[in-house]
């Protein structure tokens, strides 16, 4: 039996009186692509942010490679975050740095790699996402799809073991979604372990090892794409899936 690379147990989060996450648990095997779906406000973003403690969960535990993470131990937390890449809906590239510098800065400032070696690695990652010619551009000079690919390169440069992607294409014009999906697909093929929230169920069903349906701070149902999309047990899952299929189409 293989042990999960990432184990999440009972994550809970309250904002004031409002329970946004109600004890969510998940096990992720190496190479898995888990897709989170669910209506807006279900807690998908909060869940992903709690996994790397960008949002501090009120309760719950996280293990990476069988080691429990103690977020209060700062050094442990920073080391853990290097191993868990995060992709945001609105990219969050560093606006004062070029694409190249965006990818290099983590290597230099966090990993302490020399500028030349870090630069070579940054160029390599940008080439991998097809942006070699745009290295010297600033975020404002890039399209949304290019920005998101830079942010993926920035995360990959840190050699993460797991990637968390929070609706990476939902801020993009429809014609730019494909280029980002292509990068994520390649990542999946190369064996990257990922948890990704998305509404793009066509993309999800073709790639996901498991679909996880969240609503109201809970996982209501999880299973293979064909199970969840064609024959879900839960009526809420069925309702959501038919709605989202109307909205985003089968692709």
């Amino acid at each position: 039996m293989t042990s999960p690379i990432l184990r999440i147990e009972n994550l809970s989060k309250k904002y004031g009186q409002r329970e946004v996450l109600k004890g969510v648990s998940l096990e992720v095997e190496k190479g898995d692509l888990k897709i989170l779906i669910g209506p807006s406000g279900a807690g998908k973003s909060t869940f992903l942010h709690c996994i790397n403690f960008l949002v501090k969960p009120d309760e719950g535990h996280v293990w990476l490679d069988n080691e429990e993470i103690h977020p209060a131990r700062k050094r442990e937390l920073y080391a853990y975050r290097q191993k868990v890449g995060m992709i945001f809906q609105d990219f969050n590239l560093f606006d004062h740095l070029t694409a190249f510098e965006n990818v290099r800065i983590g290597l230099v400032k966090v990993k302490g790699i020399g500028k030349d070696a870090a630069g070579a690695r940054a160029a390599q990652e940008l080439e991998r996402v097809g942006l070699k010619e745009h290295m010297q551009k600033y975020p404002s000079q890039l399209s949304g799809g290019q920005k998101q690919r830079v942010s993926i390169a920035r995360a990959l440069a840190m050699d993460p073991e797991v990637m968390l992607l929070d609706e990476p294409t939902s801020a993009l014009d429809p014609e730019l979604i494909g280029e980002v999906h292509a990068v994520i697909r390649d990542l999946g093929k190369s064996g990257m372990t990922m948890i990704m929230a998305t509404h793009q169920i066509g993309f999800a069903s073709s790639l996901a090892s498991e679909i996880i349906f969240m609503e109201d701070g809970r996982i209501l149902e999880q299973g293979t794409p064909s199970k969840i999309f064609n024959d879900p047990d839960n009526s809420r899952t069925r309702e959501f899936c038919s709605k989202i299929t109307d909205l985003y189409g089968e692709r």
Partner: protein
Amino acid sequence: MPESLVAVIDAFPYLLQGSLVTLAVVAGALSFGLLVGAPLAIGQVYGGALIRRSVGLYVWFFRGIPLLVFLFLFYFGLCTALGINLSAFTVAIIVLGLISSAYQSQIIRGAIQSLPEGQLKAARALGMSDIKAIVNIIIPQALRLSIPGFSNEYSILLKDSAVTYALGVAEIMARAHFVATRTYHHFPLYFAAGLIFMILTWLGVKVLRLLEDRVRIPGYSHN
């Protein structure tokens, strides 16, 4: 040539030397204010309740005390009481710098708070400590956005620096006064002094505008 014009022309090199002193005081105070103001701003945005409250108190204090009172308090009061021997020039820089640090902290705080929240999040997600994120990601952006505010602060400091004449700092105003009381050409001399101040304001704002252009990032709006 009218006698008064001759008096001004004779005194002009002497006044211009004073403008070097003025500029040194202003540059010193601006730098000192930045060095103190930036950490204050960081403390006010990211610090705990106690730090935030202390910075608020600091800002309230140094914005509230009149410059002349503070200069006298420091130079004649504090320095004498503590038996430290500082020149009027040094005291002028420290006092103007402390007051400026209160204003600059608020300029920088505003700039930090105008940055999208995602900048810090993305830095943390890479494994940066908060200090690294602030130094490498937040401050470089916030300082760029602060340049128009610094430009404003420069013109205010420049004008305020005339008050340090009361301590005997040999800046423009002190020199104009010195010559005027000896030659009785008050009007042309103070007029010349005012003119020099205006030219220095214009020059400094110009220099900061050039700096702003130099560090400008495409698509990053300052105005």
